[in-house]
């Protein structure tokens, strides 16, 4: 069902940007965990007091929380995790299908005895696996670093759920990117939708944090389905995660279907 040589080539093609983004995340994560230190937290609150209230709200830093899990959940999973890996997924989604069609190298892939569905499935698999690996690294690093600096303080179950939510959110975001990569032939459109939609979602998410009056617009962003606070503090989050999973499955399935049916200008 999956073409090994293509998977190998795609890994080789994208390993650099994967490592780069993961490295940046790995620098941020320990810094944020260290900042939980009571004294630094106080000084952090002092710094935050200097910033405009609306900016802090937009970043989702209203309530830094009392436990380490709350702190990481708000600080890291409220904004950074929505933003940094997205750079990776946008790049990879575009490269996997649309770039090959646009450049014409898809002609070579399809001149081999491999079905279009197999090619698309291989690329989809790469996006899913590499995203999973990235989140897994962060999860593992989060647990290890927390336990070294603040032994026993991290609520591991909540933290794992938090990362599962993040992963499902990314499946949905990459699903959108993959579908648009399969759908459009032109260079512009896969980038406009594959990158534009998630960025718009993120901006809406930030605006909806600003206050009661604008909160209704959170219904226009996919990111509302991922609520770190509810996941950590035991609110209702399961239906949202299931919704994310269904959206992902539909997006990827549709992408492969469309790619199999469409006319290719290569």
């Amino acid at each position: 069902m999956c073409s090994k040589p293509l998977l190998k080539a795609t890994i080789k093609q994208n390993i650099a940007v994967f490592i780069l983004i993961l490295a940046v995340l790995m620098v941020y994560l320990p810094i944020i965990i260290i900042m939980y230190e009571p004294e630094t937290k106080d000084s952090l609150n002092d710094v935050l007091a200097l910033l405009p209230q609306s900016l802090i709200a937009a970043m989702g830093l209203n309530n830094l929380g009392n436990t380490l899990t709350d702190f990481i959940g708000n600080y890291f999973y409220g904004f950074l995790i929505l933003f940094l890996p997205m750079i990776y997924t946008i790049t990879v989604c575009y490269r996997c299908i649309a770039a090959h069609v646009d450049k014409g190298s898809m002609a070579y892939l399809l001149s081999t005895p491999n079905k279009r569905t197999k090619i698309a499935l291989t690329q989809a698999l790469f996006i899913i696996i590499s995203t999973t690996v990235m989140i897994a690294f962060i999860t593992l690093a989060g647990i290890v670093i927390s336990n070294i600096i603040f032994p026993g303080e991290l609520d591991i179950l909540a933290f794992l759920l938090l990362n599962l939510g993040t992963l499902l959110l990314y499946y949905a975001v990459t699903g959108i990117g993959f579908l648009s990569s399969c759908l459009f032939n032109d260079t512009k459109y896969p980038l406009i939708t594959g990158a534009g939609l998630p960025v718009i979602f993120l901006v809406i998410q930030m605006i909806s944090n600003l206050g009661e009056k604008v909160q209704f617009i959170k219904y226009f962003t996919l990111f509302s389905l991922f609520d770190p606070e509810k996941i950590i503090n035991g609110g209702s989050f399961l239906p949202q995660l299931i919704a994310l999973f269904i959206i992902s499955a539909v997006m990827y399935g549709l992408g492969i279907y469309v790619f199999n049916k469409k006319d290719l200008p290569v």
Partner: protein
Amino acid sequence: MKPIINVYGLTKDYGNNKGIFDLTFCVGEGEVFGYLGPNGAGKTTTIRHLMGFLTPDRGCSQILGMDTRTRSSEIMKQLGYLPGEIAFFDQMTGLEFLKFMGEMRGLVDTKFRDKLVDLFQLDTGGKIRKMSKGMKQKLGIICAFMHDPKVLILDEPTSGLDPLMQKVFTDLILEEKSRGKTILMSSHIFEEIERTCDRVGIIKNGRLVAIENMNDIKKKRRKTFDVTFENPLAAAEFVRSNDFDIMDVNENIVKLSIMGNVTEFIKALNYHTVLDLNIESSGLENIFMYYYGDTESEKSFEVMKGGH
């Protein structure tokens, strides 16, 4: 002859008279079929249908008895393809790319591949991104032939090759033909089609206007001569006193065409001072001009001539 490539009423309408319309032809086993037409005539669109990249509006095409759209992955086991536009995996080296394509095809035996690399004298160690157009073209040709396929579809195979390599390529085509391969190649280089092809299909504005047998064309072959005389007076004198098929007189240059024997022509020239004599000899070119004789197409023809 067993038909290998069959095209029945293939139609793809892009509007504005663009596309291909009701194409019907077949290529038999062991035959080399030349596919000729100016840019935008529909050559590549036809080939994309044969590769299964496009779904036709009407009609269908088959290779080895299999529908090209629905069973393309099976067809590809026995088909070699050279795309018209060269685009590879830029970050790979030439050898990495050939290995990758070999793996994608499940190719084990690399003997023929290595032989082709030697034949085309390609340095496969460098990154594809840094290769010249000619080197990339060689890489594409090797990639199309390396798995020793039964059927070859080549879109403008010699573009970017120097004359020496064009010769190597022509020899390769003739050798593969002698081994019973079925080849469809589009081209705008008349000599190359003339040397290698058994039949030629001419496509104009998406419609097939002629399918000619190469032997018939050779028999009907006409040569065109451009004779430069000392002055317009001598040119006029030559035109008046002889009975040749004069195509054009421009001051002291006379353009005439002769079918077959040229003895009379040489005798007649003997009475004049000839500053320059230029021979254009291509049967196919004449056939081509016959079908594309209107002014608009002449322009694209000039572009094509300049293109190689």
